[in-house]
């Protein structure tokens, strides 16, 4: 099932699977709107700190930079998995997918650590509109990543059970789309929330 250069990737060969991929793109558009709304709320609330800390007082760039590198790397590994799948190398596809989900898990655990640290210091989202906006925006991204990990686990299971069927190739492709999307959202989070935050 090698895929000669110039023909369509396997996930598009079947029209029906192609329709599903378009559906997923449209879903991502709605998710863009969801994040856009949350970003708008955050940007308005950024200076509404009440008696709580300002962004510069609670953001630490070190762990956030680590999270960024981990997530960017995972975006690379999911592409390696997709690449392997297109060359019909099942084991390699599964391997890179597992690497991706482990990276995702370490990203989420770092984020949870940061959140716990803030909350233990007394900075809950009850304290100010800024903290409500911050935890919700970053937390929504984090829960998307968590959902993605769950999806990757199921996908790994399906690849192990059924191999590289047309449906599985399409699922891997849509998962990669989803994962790249979360990566792009993170870039915006990193710049708008953290970088802009420590500079004020």
């Amino acid at each position, binding site marked *: 099932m090698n895929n000669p250069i110039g023909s369509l990737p396997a996930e598009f060969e079947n029209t029906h699977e*192609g*329709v*599903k991929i*378009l*559906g997923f793109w*449209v*879903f991502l*558009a*709605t*998710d863009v*709107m*969801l994040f*856009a*709304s*949350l970003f708008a*709320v955050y940007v*308005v*609330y950024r200076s*509404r*700190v*009440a*008696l*709580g800390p300002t962004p510069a007082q609670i953001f630490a760039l070190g762990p956030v930079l680590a999270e960024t590198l981990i997530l960017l790397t995972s975006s690379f590994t999911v592409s390696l998995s997709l690449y392997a799948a297109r060359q019909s190398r099942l084991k390699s596809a599964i391997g890179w997918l597992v690497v991706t989900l482990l990276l995702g898990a370490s990203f989420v655990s770092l984020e949870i650590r940061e959140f716990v640290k803030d909350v233990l210091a007394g900075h*809950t*989202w*009850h*304290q*100010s*509109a*800024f*903290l*409500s*906006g911050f*935890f*919700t925006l970053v937390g929504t991204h984090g829960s998307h990543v968590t959902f993605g990990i*769950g*999806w990757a686990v*199921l996908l790994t*299971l*399906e690849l192990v059970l*059924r191999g590289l*069927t047309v*449906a599985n190739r399409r*699922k891997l492709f849509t998962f990669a789309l989803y994962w790249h999307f979360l990566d792009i959202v993170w870039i915006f989070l990193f710049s708008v929330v953290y970088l802009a935050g420590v500079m004020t």
Partner: protein
Amino acid sequence: MRPWFIHLIKLLFPPQVLLPDIVGIDIGLTLSALAIALYLTKARRWGWLWREWLTTVDHKRIGIMYIIAALIMLFRGGVDALMIRSQLIVPEAHFMGAQQYDEVFTTHGTVMIFFMAMPFFFGLFNVAVPLMIGARDVAFPRLNAISFWLFAFGAALFNISFSIGGSPSAGWFSYPPYSELQFNPGVGENYYLLALQVSGIGSIATGINFLVTILKLRAPGMTLMKMPLFVWSALVTSTLILFAFPPLTVALGLTMLDRLFGASFFTLAHEGMPMMYANLFWIFGHPEVYILIMPAFGIFSEVVPTFSRKPLFGYEAMVISLLAITFLSYGVWVHHFFEMGAGPGVNVFFGLSTMLIAIPTGVKMFNWLFTMWGGRIRLSVPMLWQLGFIPTFVVGGASGVMLAAVAADYQYHNSYFVIAHFHNVIVGGTVFGLLSGMYYWWPKMFGWKLNERQGRWAFAFFFTGFWLTFMPQYFLGLEGMTRRMASYPPGLGWGGLNAMSTIGAFIMGVGFAILVYNIAWSRMHPEWDTTGDPWDGRTLEWSLPSPAPAYNFARIPEVHERDAWWAMKQRGETDAVKLSPDQVEPIHVPKNTPMPICLAVSFFVGSIGMVFAWHWMAILGGLGVVAALAYGSLEDDTDRELDPTTVLNTEKRLGRVHP
């Protein structure tokens, strides 16, 4: 008795749900549910219900379920409306207490918009769109069933609030700070947030589904500019849903975080910002009113040509105006709160963009009139609703332009003028359109027509009642009556106009009762539609038998022009839709699945847990959702194949095979 038990009873049945009328309704509903269950058991219909309806993924059946549910919700919202009007018929009437009055207008608005109008046109999309574009189903049949069941259980969640725990009372747009825990500590508001969230997920899924269906599954030859206008309206409505619902999800979600988890988004303390909610809500809310009206525009664009026997005048202009309205609808939301204090520059921008929308809408009005001009008009029931719509919507649109004038709006804001305006466009536009569409496609759904004579009476009562109800409200608004008043003192000169309005509302109620009678009577004395084309229609759905077989088209038609079926009839080529025995192919159809209803039940259980802050139950529901999704993802055997003999036999029985 133990204290926790008393606590539970108090939580589930606070004083506001123990009013005699509510208890009476509870008993009535319980008895009807028991009667239905008894009938199903006695007639051994449970298996039939499960196989044919509860697990179906057929878009035509899902459409029928949507429309039945919408009619039930129209009844519920209508009863709320009659209660509101009864309270206001004379000054200082105390038919209800203020708290109950607040609950009734809140549920009236929410039910009518989210659980009547939207599912009604989702139903018509489901019934008509795939047939109009020559498709065998929607792009994602299973997702379609998920959308329906999420809506159904969202609606159920919202409706049980009045007998368990208490209804929401913060109005259909539920502004903070009144919707916050501090001022609204009961569970009613939680019901509102979760019911809308659950059904909103379903609406987004419907938007995705129909957008992809229309873009990808059209019959060969049907280019975008050859699509029927109703399909265009479904396309732009889907687009609007996709970009409008996520901000609503956020607005509701953040309110929920405030109420249930102690966040500070819209609270007065901790620098929360109630106006942020208003902005988020109306970034959704204004596109939403176009989501409600576009399908009606689409329906009228089918009804007018059919009953005038002329092609639609200005097809391109109709399409462009739909797209223009879609685009402009995102730039008008601030007109809901000019009083926020954003300053004259911002207000004038939003005022002008609002007025601009009158231009494409006016273009559509003229095009419908020019389509009728010189046509051979038949005054069948769908056409009557259309003719009633034209003057009604013109008045409603004109009062909308009045409201868009910023300086004047400071006077109209929150008065009965606004109430009159939006009922004028939503009832006179959306509801007239939906009922027109219901009468129009009814034979396609069930195979029999609705009785014309009774249909005319229903229209006559509803239309007359409508004008009598809402025209006086413009004047009440100008005389200073504000919306949401639970009662008013005598001596303000409002009594006569209010009495007229209430009488009008009851006349509309009679119209609805005749409509229900019309359906029941026509079911008992069916006038069968044997041709599949009872109205001498123009588009592809009328080339099929009524009702269409599960796979819709045994042969996918080829389309060469607009109004494809009409053109085939003109050229005498109608035999082209029939099958030759050697042309039969096997057809893939999706299998029924219990997954959608299980997913929706899990959402329902989890939501109840959230409403009452029973964490174990919320977690249980969440696990159910995960399990249903995982099951759906791992199941790979989702289609079945109809073999050629079955297809041929079905088509033979329908008389659609060449000898």
